[in-house]
C-alpha cells in the first residue's frame, strides 16, 4: 500500500516536472528564436544592407554586428531588472512579462522601413528594439532555469535543467530553419541573385511570425503555477527586501557572483558563441559558402548534437558539474585553430581543380533604381573536380557623374560537394559538442551556488555577463581582430587571428574554474 502510494506520488511529481519543463522550455525557446533571427540575418549581411548606409559593405556589416552586440550588452541589465522583480514578485509573472516584451520587439523589427526609405530613423529604431530584446532575454533565462531547478528532484537537477539548456541551441535551429524555408519559398533560380526577393523584403517574415509563437507560449505559461520554493520563502516572510543590494553589496554573495563569472560563464559564453554563431559567420563570410548551404550545415550539426546537452546534464548529476565543463573548455582551447584551418581549407577554391569546360559566364546591365547610374553584373559559374560549385559575382556601378570612379563589389557563393559538406558538418558538430559539455550542466551549477531568495538576481548576472558580453561579442570582436590584421602585404589578413579571443577567455576560465570551483553538487537548494 505504501509502495502504491509512493509510486502514485512519484508519477504525479514526474508528470508535474514534465509540465514545468514544457511550459518553461517552449517560452524560452521562442525567446531565443526571436533573439537569434536578428543575429542570423546579421551574420548573412542582410541586416547591414537593409538598415545601414551601403557605401561600404564591411562597415555596414560591422554596424549590424554592433547593433547585434547591443542586444547582448543590455542582457545583464535585463537580468538585474527582471531578476529583482523575480525575487520580489515571483518567477511566473516575471517571465511572462519578458516574453511579451520580446515578442513585441521582434514583431516591430519586421515592420521597420529600410535605411533607403527611412534614413537614420531606421538603424535607430532597430537599435532601440534590439535593446528591448536584450533586456527581455536578460530577464527570461534566469527565471526559466530557476523555475525548473526549484521543481526538480536534487538527484536529477542537472538532467531536468539541461532541457532549458537545449532551448538556446534549438532557438537558433528554429531561426535558421525559418530563414531557410522562407528563402526556399521565395527563391528564383532564373534570377542573377536567386535570393533577391528574400533580401529585399522576405527577411521580414521570420520576424513577423514571431507574434503567433509568442501567443502560443503566453497561453501555455498562463497555466503555470508559482515555484514551490519561492512560495515557501514568501509564506515564511523571507523574501529579500532588496535582492540587488543583497546580491552585490554583501561580500559573501558578490564573491560567488565573481567566481561564477570568471570561473564558469565567461568561458562557457565564448565557447557557445564561437561554435554556433561565429562558425556560421566564418562559413558564410570567410569561406564564402552559399548562405543557404551554410545554414543547412549548421542545422544538421545541431540536430545531431542537441541530445548531448541532456547527456552531459544527466552525467553531471552523477559525477558533478565542474569537470565536465572544464573538459569542454580544454578541448575547445586545443581544437579551435585546427578546426577553423580545416574549415577554410575544405572550401578554398585555390586548392581545387577547375573544370574549365563547364565554366559559364553571363553579363547583365541595368539602371540603378531611381538613379541614372548603371549597374553591370558579371556572373561566372565554376565547377570543380571534387563536385564543388562556385558562383562568382562582380557588380560594377558606373556613376552618371563621370568624375566619380566606378565602384566594384565582388562576392562568391560556394556550394560544397557531398564529402566536403559532411566534413564541414562534422567540424561544426565537434564545436557544438564542446558547447554541450560546458553549457549542459551550467544551469544546475548556477542554481546550486546561490540561495533561493536572491537566486534569480544573482545567477542571472554572471550568466548574462558571461554569455551576453564575453560570448555575444565574440563575432564582433573576432571580426574586428581579423580586420586589424589586414595589411597592404596581406590584404586578406590572418583569418585565424580572431580565434585568440575565445581561446584566451576560455583559458582564463579554465584556470580559475579548475583552481577555485567546488566539484560537489549541492543537494539542497531550498535555502
Amino acid at each position, binding site marked *: 500500500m505504501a509502495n502504491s502510494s509512493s509510486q502514485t506520488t512519484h508519477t504525479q511529481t514526474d508528470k508535474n516536472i514534465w509540465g514545468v519543463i514544457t511550459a518553461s522550455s517552449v517560452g524560452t525557446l521562442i525567446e531565443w528564436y526571436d533573439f537569434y533571427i536578428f543575429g542570423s540575418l546579421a551574420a548573412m549581411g542582410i541586416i547591414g544592407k537593409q538598415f545601414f*548606409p551601403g*557605401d*561600404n559593405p*564591411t*562597415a555596414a556589416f*560591422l*554596424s549590424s554586428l*554592433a547593433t547585434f*552586440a547591443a542586444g547582448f*550588452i543590455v542582457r545583464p541589465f535585463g537580468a538585474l531588472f527582471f531578476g529583482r522583480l523575480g525575487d520580489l514578485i515571483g518567477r511566473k509573472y516575471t517571465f511572462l512579462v519578458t516574453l511579451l516584451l520580446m515578442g513585441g520587439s521582434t514583431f516591430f523589427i519586421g515592420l521597420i522601413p529600410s535605411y533607403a526609405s527611412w534614413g537614420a530613423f531606421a538603424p535607430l529604431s532597430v537599435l532601440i528594439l534590439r535593446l528591448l530584446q536584450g533586456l527581455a532575454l536578460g530577464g527570461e533565462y534566469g527565471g526559466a532555469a530557476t523555475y525548473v531547478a526549484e521543481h526538480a528532484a536534487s538527484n536529477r537537477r542537472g538532467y531536468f535543467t539541461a532541457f532549458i539548456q537545449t532551448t538556446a541551441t534549438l532557438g537558433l535551429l528554429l531561426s535558421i530553419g525559418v530563414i531557410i524555408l522562407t528563402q526556399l519559398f521565395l527563391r528564383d533560380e532564373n534570377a542573377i541573385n536567386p535570393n533577391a526577393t528574400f533580401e529585399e523584403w522576405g527577411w521580414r517574415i521570420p520576424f513577423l511570425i514571431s507574434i503567433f509563437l509568442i501567443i502560443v507560449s503566453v497561453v501555455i505559461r498562463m497555466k503555470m503555477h508559482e515555484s514551490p520554493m519561492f512560495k515557501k520563502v514568501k509564506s515564511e516572510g523571507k523574501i529579500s527586501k532588496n535582492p540587488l543590494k543583497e546580491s552585490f553589496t*554583501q*561580500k*559573501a*554573495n*558578490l*564573491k*560567488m557572483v*565573481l*567566481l561564477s*563569472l*570568471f570561473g564558469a560563464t565567461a568561458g562557457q559564453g565564448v565557447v557557445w558563441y564561437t561554435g554556433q554563431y561565429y562558425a556560421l559567420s566564418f562559413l558564410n563570410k570567410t569561406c564564402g559558402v552559399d548562405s543557404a548551404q551554410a545554414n543547412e550545415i549548421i542545422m544538421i550539426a545541431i540536430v545531431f548534437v542537441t541530445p548531448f546537452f541532456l547527456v552531459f546534464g544527466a552525467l553531471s548529476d552523477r559525477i558533478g558539474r565542474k569537470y565536465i565543463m572544464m573538459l569542454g573548455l580544454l578541448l575547445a582551447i586545443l581544437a579551435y585553430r585546427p578546426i577553423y584551418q580545416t574549415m577554410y581549407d575544405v572550401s578554398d577554391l585555390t586548392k581545387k581543380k577547375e573544370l574549365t569546360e563547364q565554366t559559364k559566364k553571363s553579363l547583365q546591365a541595368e539602371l540603378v533604381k531611381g538613379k541614372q547610374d548603371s549597374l553591370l553584373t558579371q556572373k561566372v559559374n565554376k565547377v570543380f573536380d571534387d563536385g564543388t560549385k562556385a558562383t562568382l559575382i562582380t557588380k560594377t556601378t558606373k556613376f552618371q557623374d563621370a568624375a566619380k570612379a566606378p565602384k566594384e563589389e565582388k562576392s562568391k557563393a560556394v556550394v560544397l560537394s557531398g564529402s566536403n559538406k559532411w566534413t564541414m558538418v562534422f567540424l561544426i558538430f565537434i564545436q557544438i559538442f564542446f558547447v554541450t559539455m560546458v553549457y549542459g550542466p551550467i544551469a544546475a551549477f548556477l542554481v546550486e551556488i546561490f*540561495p*533561493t*531568495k536572491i537566486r534569480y538576481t544573482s545567477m542571472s548576472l554572471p550568466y548574462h*555577463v558571461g554569455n551576453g*558580453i564575453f560570448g555575444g*561579442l565574440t563575432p*564582433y*570582436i573576432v571580426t*574586428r581582430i581579423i580586420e*586589424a590584421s589586414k595589411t*597592404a602585404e596581406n590584404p586578406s589578413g590572418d583569418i585565424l587571428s580572431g580565434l585568440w579571443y575565445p581561446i584566451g577567455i576560455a583559458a582564463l576560465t579554465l*584556470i*580559475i574554474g579548475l*583552481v*577555485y*570551483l*567546488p566539484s*560537489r553538487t*549541492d543537494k*539542497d537548494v531550498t*535555502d
Partner: protein
Amino acid sequence: MDSIKKILGIVWMLLAPALIVLMFNQFMTEIPALEKAIEAGKKPASELQSTYMFWIITITIFVPIAGGLALFGFYSFKGEYTKIATSSAEL
C-alpha cells in the same frame, strides 16, 4: 591549493590593469594609423566611425569587467576563496 589561490590572486590583480592599458594602447595606435590610411585614400572614411564605435563599446564594457577581475584577485589574495560556502547560512 590555498597558496596557489593567493599567488593567482596577485596575477589577476596585475592582469586587470594590464588589459585596460592594452586596450587603450591599441585604441591610441589604431585610430591615427587609420586616419592616415583614409587620408591616403587606402581605406574608406566610414571605417573610422566603425573603429571608434568598436573601441568605445569595448572600453566602456571591459573596463568595469577588468575591475571585477581585480576585485576577484583581491578576494583570492585575502583568502576569501579558501572555503567555498555550501549553504546560505555560510554565506
